[in-house]
C-alpha cells in the first residue's frame, strides 16, 4: 500500500512522517515513534487504555487512522509533564495511590486532563460519568476519582494548557 506523508504536532513538536492509509494511530505512536506510554488493551475501542488527546479531545488511538491526524495536534502521556515538572494530575495520581499496575494510567490521566479542561469544577458524579469508558482492573477506581477530584480545585495552574 502506498505511503502518504502527514504532518502533525506531537507533544508540542512538529512531526512529518509517512504512513499507509490503513495504519492505526496506536501503531504509529508505539512502533514508529517509540512512544510506548500509549498502551494496547483491546484494539477495538472497548477499554480506553490507548487514549490520546487529539486537539485536546480524548480519542482512542486504536480506532483512529493515522492519516486523519494530518494537520492536528496529538498529546500522549509523554507530553504531559513540563520538563521535569509533573502535571498536577500525574502528581495527584502518585500521591493518592491511584496507580497500581499502571497499564491504564496513561489513558486515565489523559482522559482526566480533557475532563478538567472541559469542566474544571467537576463533581464526583461528573468525574465518574466522564471516566466510565476508561477501564481499570486493579484499583477499583476510587483512588483515581479521588486524585482527579483533588485537581478540580487547582485552577489556572497549567492544567488547561
Amino acid at each position, binding site marked *: 500500500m502506498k505511503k502518504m506523508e502527514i504532518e502533525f504536532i506531537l507533544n508540542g513538536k512538529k512531526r512529518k512522517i509517512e504512513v499507509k492509509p490503513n495504519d492505526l494511530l496506536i501503531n504509529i505512536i*508505539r*512502533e514508529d515513534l*517509540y*512512544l*510506548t*506510554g*500509549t*498502551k*494496547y*488493551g*483491546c*484494539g*477495538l475501542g*472497548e*477499554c480506553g*487504555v490507548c487514549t490520546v488527546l487529539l486537539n485536546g479531545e480524548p480519542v482512542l488511538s486504536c480506532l483512529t487512522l493515522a492519516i486523519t491526524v494530518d494537520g492536528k495536534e496529538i498529546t*500522549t*502521556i*509523554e507530553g*504531559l*509533564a513540563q520538563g521535569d515538572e*509533573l502535571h498536577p494530575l*500525574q502528581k495527584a*495520581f*502518585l*500521591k*493518592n*495511590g491511584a*496507580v*497500581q*499496575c*499502571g*497499564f*491504564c*494510567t*496513561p489513558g486515565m*490521566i489523559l482522559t482526566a486532563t480533557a475532563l478538567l479542561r472541559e469542566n474544571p469544577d467537576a463533581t*464526583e458524579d461528573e*468525574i*465518574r*460519568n466522564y*471516566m*466510565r*469508558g*476508561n*477501564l*481499570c*482492573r*486493579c*484499583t*477499583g*477506581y*476510587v*483512588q*483515581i*476519582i*479521588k486524585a482527579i*477530584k483533588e485537581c478540580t480545585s487547582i485552577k489556572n495552574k497549567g492544567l488547561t494548557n
Partner: protein
Amino acid sequence: MEKEQYDFIGQPLEIKNIGKVTGKELYSSDINIPGQLYAVILRSPHAHAEIKKVDYSEAVKVGAVCIGPQDVPEIIYNERIVSIPEKTYRDRTVLPKEKVRHKGEALVACAAETEEKAWAALQKIKIEWGKQWKPLLTLEKALSDDAPPIYDWVYLGEEKLKVKNNIACERNIEVGDVEEGFREADIVIEKTFHTQRVYHMQFETKSAVCVPEADGGITVWTTSQGIHNVRILLGNIFNLPLSKINIKRITLGGSFGSSIQMNSITPICVALALKAKKPVKLVSSREDDFYDHAKYPLKTILKVGVKKDGTFTAAHCRVWVEIGGHNIQAYPYLGCVAGWFASLYKWKNIKYEGTAVYTNKVPTCAMQGYGNPQINFAVESMIDILAEELKMDPINLRLKNYVGKGDEFWGQGPTVRSIIRSCGVEEMLLEGAKLAQWEKRVPHYQKKEVIRKGMGVARGFHTSGTGGPNPGEVIDYSGATIKINEDGSVDVLTALMDLGGGTWDALAKIVAEVLKVPFEKIGIYNGIDTRSTVFDVNTHATRGVYCGGGAVKFVAEKVKEILLNYAATLFKDLPENLVLSCNKELGQAIIYPREIPENYKTIGEIAEYAHTTSWGTLAYTSTLRQKNCPPCFITHFVEVEVNTRTGEVKIPRVVIMGDSGTIINPNLWEGQIIGAFSRGLGFGLLEETDYHPEDGSLRCKGLVTDYKIPTTLEMPKIEDIIVRSAHTYEPTGPFGAKGIGEAALSSVGPAIANAIYNAIGIRFYELPITPEKILKSLQEKEENLRKRRGE
C-alpha cells in the same frame, strides 16, 4: 507485643515509580529489539479434534518463519512449577501434538517482518483434521460414561497415569468422624453452590520478546509473576543450561494469578526465535488472551451439622471443578480449597472430597484467591442460612465458631499448616458492625418497596505465603542481594515481582527501616533479571510482603551487621556501641557512638571510605524460607439496593475491615482492598465466561464490553467506602506485617449474596447474581405466593 516506633513503616507513601504516570515504564509489550520479527498465532477452530497434518509450507514461501506441533520439543510439562515435582501433574507440550482440547488452543505460530505480513502468512496454513468430537463443556457431560476421553494418560511426577472418566485428579481428606458429628447435631442443612468461570481481564495481554544470543542462549522479557520458574521451565523444555537463559524482570500490566504459570505464549515465542535465529516479539490480541486463561470455577455441596446453641458438630464438603483442556495445577487447587474450608470455622469433624475434571474449555488457573472466593461463597452463605434457622445473629454465629489465635491454619492445603499468632476477627466483626450500623438492619419480610435495601456480612482470609514449620508440597523461598553503594544509597536486587500492589515499595520501605536510609535512596524498580538474582518462587499466595519482605529484611540485617562492623573500625569502638539512625534533615542514615551523636558519620561517608580505601562493598546475598503462613483476615459489610422492577443491584455503601498486622504502606494497602472489592463486585454480580453449547466458543467472542467488568459507575462513592484496619501485630512477619492481596477478595461475593437475601428474601446459590436471575426468582416467589393463597 509493644509496637515499635518506625521511621518509614506505616507512613503514607507517595508512589515513587513515576514511570507509570509519565509513560516511561516499560512492559514486555513495549520492548523493541532492532531486527525483531512479529509473531502471531493460529488458534484451533475446534474444541476437541484430532490433528492429522499441519502444512505451513505456503506461509514459509511468503517469508514467514513458522512452528507447528511437529517442531516443538516432546517434553511434557506443567507450566506452573510452584509445587514439588512429585505432586505436579503434567499434560502439555508447547503446541498440542495429537489433538486440540479447547477452541482457541494455540496450534501454529508465524513470525515475519511486520505483524501484517505474519497475519497474511497465517492465512496460508492448511490443517487437516481427523476425528472430531462434540465438545464436553459441563462437569456432568465430561464425567458421563460415554464421554470421549480428553486425555488417555498424563504424568504425575515421573509416574504415567491412565485418565479415567476425564478426572484430572482427586483429593479426599477426613478429620474426625463426620457421621458421628451429624448424629450429635440438632440441625443438619445441605445446599449446593456454584461459582463461575471469570476471565482475569488484566490489561496487558500475555506478551513475550525473545532474543537468541550468540552463545546459543536466550534473553526473554515476558509477562510473569516469577521469572526464575520461567527460566527453569524454558531450560527443561529447550534443553538449555540455565546459565544461558536470562529472564528479565519487567513490570506487569496486571495479572491476578494468570502469570503464576509460565504463559502459554512464552515458549512459543522462544521456539520461533530459536528457529528464526532472530529476535521475536509476540503480543497476544485480547481475543487470544480470552482463550488462554480463566479463573477456576467450583461446584460445592456443603452439609453442616449444628447444635441449638450454635456449636458446629460436623461439615461434609464435596467439590468439583471443571478445569478446561489443561491441568494447570488443579491438584494443589483442590488442596487449597480444602484448607480454606477447614480453616474458616471449627467444624469439629470434617470430610472433604474434591474432584477436578477435564472439559473442552479454556484452561483455568489461579485468580486472586486460588479457590478461596469460591469456597467462601458456599461457607459464608451457609453461615447466614444456619443463623436464620437457629434464630441467631449471623455475627454471633461467626464469633462463636471462627478459627482464630492459637488454632491451626491450613495455609496451602493439608500439607502446609501453622498456628495462628495474630487475629483481628473479633475486632473486625464488632467494629465493622458499628461502622455499618448493623443494628439498624431489618428482616426482608418487612420490606415492600420497589427498591429494597439490604445489608450483608461475610468474612474471609487468605494465607500469607506457603511456608509452614514443615515445607509440605509447595516450594516457598525468596532472596535478595542488598548493597550499599559508594555514595550511601542502596540497591535491592530481588527477583520478586510487583503485580501492581506496591510490593516493591513495601520491600524498599522494609530495607529503609532496617538500614535507616531514606526510602528515596533505595533502588529497586528496574534492572533485574534471573542472572543477577537468587531464586524467588513467585508473587502468589499473598506472599510478597510476608515472604519477600521477610527475605529482604533478613538480608538487610546482615548488611547492617557488616556496616556496623566496618564502621566500628573507623570509630575505633565496638559495633554494639554504635547507633544507626536516620537523620531526616541530612536525608542520610548516620552512625555515631552511643551518647555522642555529634560525632556522627553518614553512611555515605562510610561507604565512600570503604570504596576509596579498597576495603570493598558493604553487601550481602541470601535466601530465606518463612516457616509460618499467617492468615490475613478480611470482613465485608455490604449494603445493596435491589430494584425489584429491573433486577439491578446497586451498592451504595460498604464497610471493609482488614487485618494485615502492621501495615507497611497505608494508602497502597487501602488500594488493594478497594481494587479487590471492585473485582469481587464483578464476581458477585456481573462476570462470567459462558460458552456456546455446540461449538465451545466463548459467547463474549473476546469482547471486553460483552464480557462486562465493573466501570467507575458501579463502585460506591469515595465517602461510602469505609476501610479500616484491625490492631494486630504478626510476630513472625517483617515488622509485624502479613499479607492482604487475595484476602481482600475472598468474602465480597457472599457478602453481596447475603445482603441481597436481606433485601428481597431470596437466597442465590449461584454467582454471578445477574438482574435476569433476580427478576426470574422474584417472579417465581410471587407465583408460589399466589399458589399458596389459592389464586
